[in-house]
């Protein structure tokens, strides 16, 4: 009886005090790594540690961060979404065209874009949950198709935002104090994700879905509907990201979203949301997105060889994931 009560303690005793310290700081390793990174960049370039730069980083990661919040849903549920970048491009184009060519007022055009994002996500969900295609293959296929659709829809030309362009650009450039609207939107999405995961039954069911789909199904939950919903939400958040992207560029470019899905995936993974599902939370999304932003901006300021930046960036991502993988294996 006593043996079962103290499984955790026992392993800690066996591993000695040093392992005990490691085990205790493990939840904070991500934060510690972030602080170390900031210290390193700050020592090479003092401007890096200025408050201005902090808000600059937050603004820079807003779009990727919003997409990463969306990515968290399928990821926790045991899948992932590679079509986010394409959805962001296509929905940006939809909003632009609704405003400039159909003369819709901005709120209606935005609603149309968000609805389009949910519809595209729903298609992903159907392919994964009803047709039974592996999420990697399904969303890779829709990524290609959605980018193609964007080209058809825009005729390969950037679309202008029409006479509401100035108002629309506020979505990215408007300020609340030091924060850009884009940053505010990102932080709001993180809070909404935390709320969903912690305070709605839906959130807990996502974790059980990702942790053991068959057990979740046998307990009577509609796993197909749950899965579809994660892709709908990912599509919706990709569309929100697409709004900020379009606002920032001042036009809807058909290739604007290229590669964003990989950055959003990287944010989640660096932050500690496991591939394979069932683990992670809103905090991990925030941490991952900020870490990638710090690396990106820090390298721009501290390293003068632009071609080397992605190499260093990739190595840091691999290091983060490797440390996490080792920690998991040791358990």
């Amino acid at each position, binding site marked *: *009886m006593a043996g*079962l*009560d*103290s*499984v*955790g*303690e026992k392993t800690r005793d066996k591993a000695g005090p040093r392992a005990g310290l490691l085990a205790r700081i493990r939840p904070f390793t991500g934060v510690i790594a972030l602080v170390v990174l900031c210290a390193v960049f700050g020592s090479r370039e003092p401007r890096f540690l200025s408050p201005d730069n902090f808000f600059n980083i937050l603004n820079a990661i807003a779009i990727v961060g919003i997409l990463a919040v969306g990515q968290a849903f399928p990821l926790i549920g045991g899948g992932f979404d590679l079509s986010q970048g394409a959805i962001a491009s296509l929905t940006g184009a939809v909003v632009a065209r609704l405003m400039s060519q159909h003369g819709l007022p901005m709120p209606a055009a935005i609603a149309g874009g968000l609805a389009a994002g949910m519809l595209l996500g729903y298609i992903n969900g159907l392919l994964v949950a009803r047709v039974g295609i592996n999420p990697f293959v399904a969303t890779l296929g829709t990524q290609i198709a959605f980018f193609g659709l964007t080209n058809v829809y825009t005729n390969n030309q950037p679309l202008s935002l029409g006479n509401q362009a100035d108002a629309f650009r506020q979505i990215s450039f408007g300020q609340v104090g030091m924060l850009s609207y884009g940053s505010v939107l990102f932080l709001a999405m993180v809070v909404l994700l935390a709320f969903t995961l*912690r*305070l*709605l*039954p839906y*959130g*807990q*069911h996502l*974790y*059980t879905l990702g*942790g*053991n789909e*068959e*057990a*979740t*199904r*046998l*307990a*009577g*939950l*509609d796993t197909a509907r749950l899965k579809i919903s994660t892709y709908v939400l990912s599509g919706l958040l990709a569309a929100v990201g697409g709004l900020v992207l379009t606002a920032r560029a001042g036009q809807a470019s058909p290739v604007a979203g290229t590669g964003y899905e990989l950055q959003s995936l990287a944010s989640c993974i660096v932050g500690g949301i496991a591939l394979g599902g*069932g*683990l992670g939370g809103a905090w991990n999304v925030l941490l991952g997105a900020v870490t990638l932003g710090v690396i990106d901006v820090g390298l721009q300021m501290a390293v003068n060889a632009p071609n080397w930046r992605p190499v260093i960036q990739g190595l840091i991502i691999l290091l983060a994931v490797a440390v996490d993988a080792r920690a998991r294996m040791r358990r």
Partner: protein
Amino acid sequence: MALLELAGIQKSFPGARVLSGVSLELDAGKVHALVGANGAGKSTLIKILAGAYSRDAGEIRIDGNPVRIRNPHEGLEAGIGVIYQEFNLVPDLSVAENILIGQEPARRLAGLIPLMNRRELFRAAAAHLEELGFHLDPRLPVKELGTGEKQLVEIAKALYRRARILVLDEPTAALSRRETERLFAIMRSLQERGIGMIYISHHLEEVFAVADRITVLRDGRNVATWARGAVTEAELVEAMVGRAVAAGERPESRAGAPVLTADAVSGRGFREVSLEVRQGEILALTGAAGAGQTELLWALYGAVPIASGGLRLRGQAVRWSSLRDAIRAGVLLSPGDRKAFGIVPTLDVKTNLTFADLKHWTTAGLLNRRAQREAAVARIEKYGVRCSSPEQEMQTLSGGNQQKVVVGRVAERNGVVYLFDEPSRGVDVGAREEIYRLIRSLAEDGAGVVVATPDIQEALRLGNRVGVMRQGRLVLTEPAETVTEHAVLAAIVGG
């Protein structure tokens, strides 16, 4: 001199002694059948012979010489080929490639780069098959073969590696009657070639048809060996029966009104099963592994389809379009194989105990986490789950405590019928008694309960009525007062 001798083989797993001294002899060209109830130790013995498990004590001798078998490779090297129920074949490769896998004939390109000599491969395989008298096309991909033919490929593969001893584990379980007869004919021809065979089966009829000698395994030891013809089916069953369940331990039958009735239901894995579960009683279903109990429970729960026949709930015909229909009607399942179907290993105990009925702690769409935690604490207490806190990760619990969580989560839901599949699988003795108590209390509160278990003793101790399944059919149901272990075992082995 015997071809194969086992002397005093012992094997223990943490908390359980599985083999406590098994000795037997197999002569060249003979078939030695091994029979016994579930849990007698047959599978463990096979795995020791194959080199998949190491033995704790005892000796294996071939031609009188002790051999070391520490891994599957050494097993084959020693001349022992094990044909499991699950085949180890690569479906996309041809028959020839599967037979010669790892021993493909090679020729060297420019004296350096080894290339597979495909012509030689097919020639060698064809010659081998012809010599054995197996009519198989060596070029056919294995996935296009039927079960019986795949089995022949496995046998050919073992014999190509010069196996002189074949261990056949329930070889006819998935075969048609015609395939079974062909297998028996092949076994006779292998006997003429001097191959010795250990034949494991639940079907005494077959054992009498093929075996030269028959050994009964019980509680991890060999209790009797006979030459064929020197023993009757009744004597064999008698020897297989273990410790009798004391009369006082037997539950009494209670006859409430029927809650769930199945009328000649058939589906994948079960055929024309008719049964009724009455209020306040436990119906315990037993049978050999794979006899269809699990499939039947899943079908009663709506988790797999029923192809024909119907269900009635309190006399009203019902059809489940999904398992959620069954749950709404109060039919609940605690699945077996908790790792695959029961627990979410990476989440905490609290979530595992409560995720199926979060609506109890949800108001206006919001989950009250404190109420959820309090309920989890109460359930941990009620079901005797030993954990350091409700936040302990599920996969760090012992098997018994994991099972209590699964059982508790199901028992907490409002049910009229509870289905338990192997509720004590991989569970220590103490936890087992607690799970039994819980199952009994559900029945005492008026629910109908079905328990499926491969363990006869468990079925006799739990069931107010005991049912036996054999090859997908319910072949026996009897009240606990009158049923004997003997009768149950006889029904399982087809006596």
